[in-house]
């Protein structure tokens, strides 16, 4: 079993390494000292299991899961010094975790459970649990994490102008740049503040204060002109929402 250790503190990584060295079936695939490095390492090294520290400055362990995507994540044992909020979420979603300082017995038990999960080969189960975990303990509500081939980018939600569906992705237009996020429009809509964003058709969401002009078209559709000059047409299904906005 190949294991990746992620923690921003070298000493803490050494501690986990020492505990893992005692196991005969474990090979330490690598270490990462930050969130972005962890995202890269998971993709490049493709480990079976990750020991993932939660409170890393800059990018938390949960954000690492979000960036990699629950469907691409290996099995995870979270490591945390103190975070009551995350612990509640872990308990609720039966996520494996160990506390710092690390108790060898508990470490052994968490490792044992992870072994079973990996042995059962139920990827769907792992993905579902991680997805639920992200939903109940959304790492940061004020930004999105966009992972591309060779980097991780953070998009501040208050920078988003408008978004639209593009195949299996969502194209995000924010502060003059565009990003491709692996997410559905409906999934993203749930994460955006309904007072600030308006869904105008199945495939499109716009930020309300970026709308410059609303032109009425035939049969209950509208053309919205955004401040950057972009024109988008609403569908009849969302007619009422737009009319509510106009009144």
């Amino acid at each position, binding site marked *: 079993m190949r294991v990746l250790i992620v923690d921003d503190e070298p000493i803490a990584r050494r501690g986990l390494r020492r505990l893992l060295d005692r196991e005969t079936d474990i090979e330490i695939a690598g270490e990462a000292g930050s969130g972005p*490095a962890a995202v890269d390492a998971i993709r490049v090294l493709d480990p079976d299991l990750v020991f993932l520290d939660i409170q890393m400055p800059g990018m938390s362990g949960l954000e690492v899961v979000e960036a990699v995507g629950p469907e691409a994540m290996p099995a995870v044992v979270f490591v945390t010094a103190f975070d009551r909020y995350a612990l509640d979420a872990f308990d609720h979603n039966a996520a494996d975790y160990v506390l710092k300082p690390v108790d060898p017995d508990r470490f052994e038990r968490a490792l044992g459970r992870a072994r079973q999960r990996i042995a059962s080969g139920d990827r769907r189960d792992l993905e579902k649990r991680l997805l639920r975990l992200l939903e109940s303990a959304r790492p940061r509500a004020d930004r999105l994490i966009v992972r591309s081939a060779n980097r991780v980018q953070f998009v501040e939600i208050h920078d988003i102008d408008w978004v639209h569906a593009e195949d299996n992705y969502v194209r995000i237009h924010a502060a003059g740049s565009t990003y491709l996020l692996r997410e559905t429009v409906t999934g993203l809509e749930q994460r955006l503040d309904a007072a600030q964003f308006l869904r105008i058709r199945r495939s499109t969401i716009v930020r309300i204060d970026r709308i410059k002009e609303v032109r009425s078209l035939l049969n209950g559709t509208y053309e919205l002109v955004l401040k950057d000059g972009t024109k988008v047409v609403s569908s009849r299904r969302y007619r009422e929402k737009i009319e509510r906005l106009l009144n």
Partner: protein
Amino acid sequence: MSLPRKALLIFVCWTLVGLYFSVHSLALYSYLGRPLPFAYFARIHLTCAYTWALFTPFLLILSKRWPLSGRHRWPHVALHMAAALIFSSLSLFIVEIVHLFVNGEPLHDWSRGWSALMYEELHGDILRYWAVIVIDHTLGYYRRMRDRELTASQLRAELAESKLEVLKRQLHPHFLFNTLNSISVLMFEDVKVANRMLLRLSEILRHGLTDDSPHEVSLERELRFLERYLEIERMRFGDRLTIDMNVDPTSLGARVPNLILQPLVENAIRYGVAAVDRPSRVAIRAEKQGEELKLEVRDDGPGLARNAKRGIGLSNTEARLRQMYGTEQKLELTSPAAGGLLVSISIPFRMATA
């Protein structure tokens, strides 16, 4: 108290005063062998009482404007004496007029002249005037005292709370458990290093749990405490963390708020150093600039825009500085061209006594 309730209270009080005098007159006249019906006395005394009831709101205004306490209390007493004469004369006059209209004749014999009436009756009305002023003053005094007690207990609570805040800041659970974890790991590698970290942590805990931690300490003492914290962080981050300490020796004796630097440095390490993979540097400066002490904490991390979150840690510091120095302090956040974040604080330069 609402206005109608106030009016009712004034009405009830003066009614009681009127009835009191009526009963007294009834008893006195029976004793003198000239019994008269109660209604007769009640009419006289209640007329007078209700006249004063109407005056009362004005008297309360005067009482507020000319308080019997404070620097001008003697001039105020003089003003009240004059007002007492005016209101009392007015009251006598009104009572006579009312009787003239209601009974067809005045209460007193006017032929003896107005001044005779004043000599006979004015003293009672002057007393009524003073009764209102003194009662109002007493109630006001009592109210102020109660308010003062309330404020004092609030201040005590705030002080206790800020101590708790300080404690929480130092013993940031995340810092505490990560340090314990480091010690737990180091014990297997190097007992001496583990022990040193344990000792530094104990010192920090002791510092935080000591009850009499003062609001202000000398910069020297603040830096000594900071050094303990930094030693732990240096052990944790190894060669990834470099600390530049640049302290003007003349400023060592200056007074600074207790534990002002540690949260700033912790912020710089958490968001500046730990957030990037490369080795980084935190620079701490202190110098006297004219009448001010300038403290600076600078990191070379991602800087301001990326970390909106770090403002939260600083708002505590800002509130504390404002509370202690009012407008004499300044806290600034800047992103120097070279990158990173610079937090600078200016406070009045005052030497510590001890």
